[in-house]
């Protein structure tokens, strides 16, 4: 076994760029998936059976599909369906956003539902509208329950971005494996890839723990 760890250092540029893309993808996906999740949750909670059903169906669909398949399917189907050309990055972004929006909508819905009905009733009995009751009384309380779960979803998303490497998006996983293929330095590059993910992911996981402790449910 002869190892050459220099390879990692030599290709640090590619690895850094890959890491950037990973982070960028995570940020952009969440930026889309949070409003997306809110929209879906509102649809789910609305009185209209059409909206509620559509939202429920959407969420069920993405809860029950492997993300890697969604990525592939988006890659092949979207150009045909829309007649437009999408970059692999955009395709990956769309697949991730759809998936995370579905999970977020459940998080938001469950968070809101966890607030006792009595709180809404107390607000209504003062003469507030449903909207005012939601905004002033329910949402602020739901927020502290939603935040830790959202943070967990963030970390999962961060890891799931690695799946877009299969459609050749230049994220950390893709770049690392490209270098491996070019240099035949398998152990070094793969270990470096794992290590970089670890360095980025570990603090995030610890932050999630802290949020869970801070906003832990205490009735």
């Amino acid at each position, binding site marked *: *076994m002869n190892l050459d760890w220099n390879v990692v250092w030599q290709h640090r540029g590619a690895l850094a760029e890959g890491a950037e893309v990973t982070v960028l993808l995570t940020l952009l996906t969440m930026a889309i998936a949070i409003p997306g999740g809110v929209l879906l949750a509102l649809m789910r909670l609305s009185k209209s059976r059409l909206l509620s059903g559509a939202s429920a169906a959407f969420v*069920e*669909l993405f*809860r*029950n*599909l*492997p*993300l*890697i*398949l*969604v990525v*592939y*399917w988006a890659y*092949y*189907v979207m150009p*045909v369906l829309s007649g437009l050309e999408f970059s692999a990055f955009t395709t990956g972004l769309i697949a991730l956003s759809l998936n995370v929006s579905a999970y977020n909508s459940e998080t938001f819905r469950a968070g809101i539902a966890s607030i006792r009905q009595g709180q809404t009733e107390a607000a209504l009995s003062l003469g507030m509208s449903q909207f005012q009751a939601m905004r002033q009384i329910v949402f602020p309380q739901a927020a502290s329950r939603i935040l830790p779960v959202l943070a967990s979803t963030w*970390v999962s998303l961060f*890891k*799931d*971005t*690695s*799946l877009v*490497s*299969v459609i050749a998006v230049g994220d950390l*996983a893709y770049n690392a*494996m490209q270098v*491996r293929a070019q240099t035949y330095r*398998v*152990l070094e590059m*793969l*270990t470096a*890839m*794992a290590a970089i*993910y*670890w360095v*980025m*992911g*570990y603090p*995030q*996981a*610890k932050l999630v723990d802290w949020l869970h402790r801070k906003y832990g449910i205490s009735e």
Partner: protein
Amino acid sequence: MEFDFSPLLESWQFLLGGLGVTLLLALLTVLGSLLLGTLIGLARCYGPAWLRWPLVFYIDSMRAIPVLVVLVWTYFALPILTGITFPPFWAALVALTLHIAAYVAEIVRAGVQSIRPGQFRAALALGMSWRQTITEIVLPQAVVRMLPAFASILSITIKDTAIAAVIAVPEYMQRSQTLAGQSYRPIEVFSVAMLVYFLVLFPTTRLVDAIYARVAHLGRS
């Protein structure tokens, strides 16, 4: 835009075999990770202090590293390190089990720590040993609370097996890829794949929800 599903009809046995591998891999992984994860979780809570640190490190590392990375590393890098080569299926089994066991360990930890300390004190005051306390008082209560989370592990595992396609495990995802490549009909092949996975996962998540609804109240203090 015309669709041609004939490649799927011709190769249905090929795909069905892939589905079999998916389910087998998922099942073995679930069993393995439940076993390993429970042991690790309990060891982390009740084991000797020197064991705690490496176990926490392992658990937190699996939370930080993507499944894809663990799979690829296990299949390509581990042989270089150890000199043992794994066939893809076994590499995937090892990688997935290690990854998911970490989640199971966390579930066990959360479940066990949610039991009120008073329960321990009451049991010990009765003269029970630590082992008896854990097996007869703490675990039964904790298991009820952990059940819904355990059940969702099955669903997550099945989804993760699809990632094993990247190390050429002949499960359903990988076989779909092969067929799509050969037949030049990716839309049809992957659409059917979506349907198949949905049909497998939907009852599983429904089962998870049903278990959760039934059992959640038992775990509330």
